[in-house]
């Protein structure tokens, strides 16, 4: 799995969970908060994405991630090749 593919999954879940955000609008160097996500929106995007990617990452490992690209990097550490 490539990082681009992981980013695509995250973007799809951002669009599903946030209001008025289109796939093409999303800049991966930004945080989900920049698109109006509240803390529970972020938890939902992360848990939906982990389900789509068939990975499980403990909450404590996800605490310090700033932007969408950083989240994709964290996911990449866990996705099966």
């Amino acid at each position, binding site marked *: 799995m490539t990082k681009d593919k992981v980013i695509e999954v995250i973007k799809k879940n951002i669009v599903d*969970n946030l*209001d008025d955000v289109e796939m093409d609008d999303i800049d991966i160097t930004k945080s989900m908060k920049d698109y109006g996500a*509240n803390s*529970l*929106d972020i*938890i*939902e995007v992360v848990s939906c994405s982990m389900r789509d990617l068939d990975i499980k990452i*403990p*909450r*404590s490992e996800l*605490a310090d991630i700033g932007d969408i690209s950083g989240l994709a990097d964290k996911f990449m550490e866990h996705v099966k090749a």
Partner: protein
Amino acid sequence: MSTPRVTHTLEDNGIAYLNMVDVQGKNIFSHRFVEEFLAQLDIIEEVNPRVMIIRGLDDVFCGGADKESLMELASGEIVVRDLVISERLIHTRFPVIAAMEGHAMGGGLVIGLCSDIVLAARESRYGAVFMTMGFTPGMGTTTLLQELVGPYIASEMMYTGKRFKGKELAEKGCGFNYILPKADVLAKAKDVALQIAERNPKSVGLLKYTLSARKKKLLIDARVQEDLMHTISFGYPETKEIIRGFYAGS
């Protein structure tokens, strides 16, 4: 004196407000929070307003049980104080409107379920999150949630523990009276409250008594099963582990 966690406001038009304002604790059921909630409700009941609106914070309506209560339950103690909240709200003599502008989770959602009229916000999230922490739902959720959202959506909410966005619930056509943009929730709640306040208060009280009979019974039915399930499900060693994992790092 420390900052109050719950306050009340009384308006001349007969509308009372129960305000959950624990910014620091994010409106979760700490000992102090529940104590203040019940004390403020006592004061309002003494006044006997025409109608009561329950409000939370802008981001959180109410977060439900705190870790301490869950660990007490997991060690076999019965935590009565949270249960009293459902009981007390259902037994009020005046109609209760839940203006859930912010998120409502677990027992926090139950506050809505025990109200007569329920408003939610499109942007906020609502979840019967009990199962995400490994144990079965409580506080009347198993029967009362079906009343609000219908049995099938209630099943999905309880089995998955998913925190649904108000917008999603609106699309599912749930029984909420209104699911509005957050900024409009309180104004609509006031509008409904004013309409109730204009009616003959004695007849409103009478109607409340009749309409709440069903909920009182549903709560009793729920409690019999839920208390039994809690005794069993909190007894599983896995449950304690999941609760600990859930709060790890917080």
